[in-house]
């Protein structure tokens, strides 16, 4: 790492990249970019670049994992060796195993699992470049990929983190704030159901700060939610234009 900045928020209340405390990084979402996958999406949030792809519902593999009354969602969150400063071994780390589990559990509440008994839905997430908040950006992209694959869902799942740096509660932590800040609270939300499907935290927050952080993260989620819906629609606008040509 380079030398540590003395303050993460300057005298004017602006952050290292010039954002206000409650401001998101620019978010770019694209749907249907892996031709082979049944559904796919790509997200850029700050310097994060993440791909999500869905295969299925298809025959469960291995077969004994299948369930009689519902489908099984399998999720693999994986970071490319070149996605971080020091090369990351491509073998799954304990962190990646845990994140795969919490990401899966954040998406399952949105899927009508009972519609596809004895099958499996495979969800693959590849982090091509990491910049803090990869689990949140992954969830945002993964739920778009699921929607793109045509699997019926109760709502899109969207995720965003809030946290605390230099005694200020801020939205959407980037890498430096994540590493040097004093708390990080990732939240995943189904906005139209007001349902929190992922909540984690590390750091140190009192009750008031925690409540502020959760509410700030929810507001962030709602902003990304509209971008998400636009991205999903955009794909069909493209299809329509192609057909008219």
């Amino acid at each position, binding site marked *: 790492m380079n030398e540590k900045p003395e303050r993460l928020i300057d005298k004017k209340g602006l952050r290292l990249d010039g954002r206000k405390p409650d401001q998101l990084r620019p978010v770019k979402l694209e749907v249907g970019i892996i031709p082979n996958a049944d559904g796919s999406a790509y997200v850029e949030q700050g310097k994060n670049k993440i791909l999500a792809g869905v295969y299925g519902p298809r025959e469960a593999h291995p077969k004994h994992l299948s369930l009689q009354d519902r489908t099984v969602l399998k999720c693999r969150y994986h970071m490319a060796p070149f996605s971080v400063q020091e090369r990351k071994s491509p073998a799954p780390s304990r962190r990646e195993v845990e994140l795969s589990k919490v990401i899966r559990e954040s998406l399952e509440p949105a899927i009508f699992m009972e519609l596809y008994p004895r099958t499996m839905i495979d969800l693959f997430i590849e982090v091509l470049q990491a910049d803090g908040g990869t689990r949140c950006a992954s969830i945002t992209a993964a739920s778009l990929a699921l929607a793109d694959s045509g699997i019926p869902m109760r709502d899109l799942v969207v995720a965003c983190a809030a946290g605390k740096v230099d005694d200020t509660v801020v939205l959407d932590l980037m890498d430096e704030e994540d590493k040097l800040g004093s708390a990080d609270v990732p939240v995943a939300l189904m906005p139209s159901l*007001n349902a929190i499907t992922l909540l984690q935290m590390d750091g140190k927050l009192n009750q008031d700060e*925690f409540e502020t952080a959760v509410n700030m993260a929810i507001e962030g989620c709602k902003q990304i939610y509209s971008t998400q819906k636009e991205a999903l629609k955009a794909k069909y606008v493209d299809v329509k234009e192609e057909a008219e040509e």
Partner: protein
Amino acid sequence: MAAVIAKIKHNQIVQLIEKEQRLDGRELTEYRKIKLEQGTIERAEGSARVHIGKTDVLVGTKVELGEPFPDTPNEGVLTVNVELVPLASPSYEPGPPDENSIELARIVDRGIRESKMIDTEKLCIDPGKKVFVVFVDVYVLNHDGNLIDASALAAVAALLNTKMPNYEVEDGEVKIKSGSTQLPIKQHPVTVTCAKIGAKLVVDPQLEEEQVMDARLSMAIDDDEEICAIQKGGTGYFTPEQVVGFGKLAVQKAKEMRKKLDW
């Protein structure tokens, strides 16, 4: 987790909890009986065994010499590992750690790490070269629900009676001397878990309640009554009000449980 539960039992538990009653007659916010013994394994540098109802967890710690991480050259290292041993439950099998044991280990680890329980700078011997490494090994002996709180409590209790060896540095060589000193401790984090069943939150779910729950939420609380780690699990969801409300309840419950710790 994948164990099957009879539909009739499932419905019974859900209906009871709707009426704010539980299988074993507890209140929704009441823990089962907690029993804590410290120093049960003499060969370990520190140890503790926690019973919460029939859930039984043993933790042993070892302290060894090792190298620090490059990004924290003057801090000791903490490593938490969880073994879901096959004798603890009909659904456990021998083999490498699965996602459940990895998640559990990481939740226990986060509570200790984020509360800054251990004064890791005091574990440094030679910055960038030699530090003490603290291994916390969680051994689940009987699984009857709420492994998170039992493991976290046992791990903290074991660290509280962990001794690190005395040493001296001679010509750049670290020599272990006889005798030992207490591991430097700054905080006493306690983790509190609830399960969401229907629209209700129940504290300290037993195994059958875990089998019917929609989701669970765990919070680690430090001595200053601040939240230092959170983990949501399970395939259901929480409302923002439930999350914030549980934060307040967790602080209360953590205070009660912290009294069991001896320091």
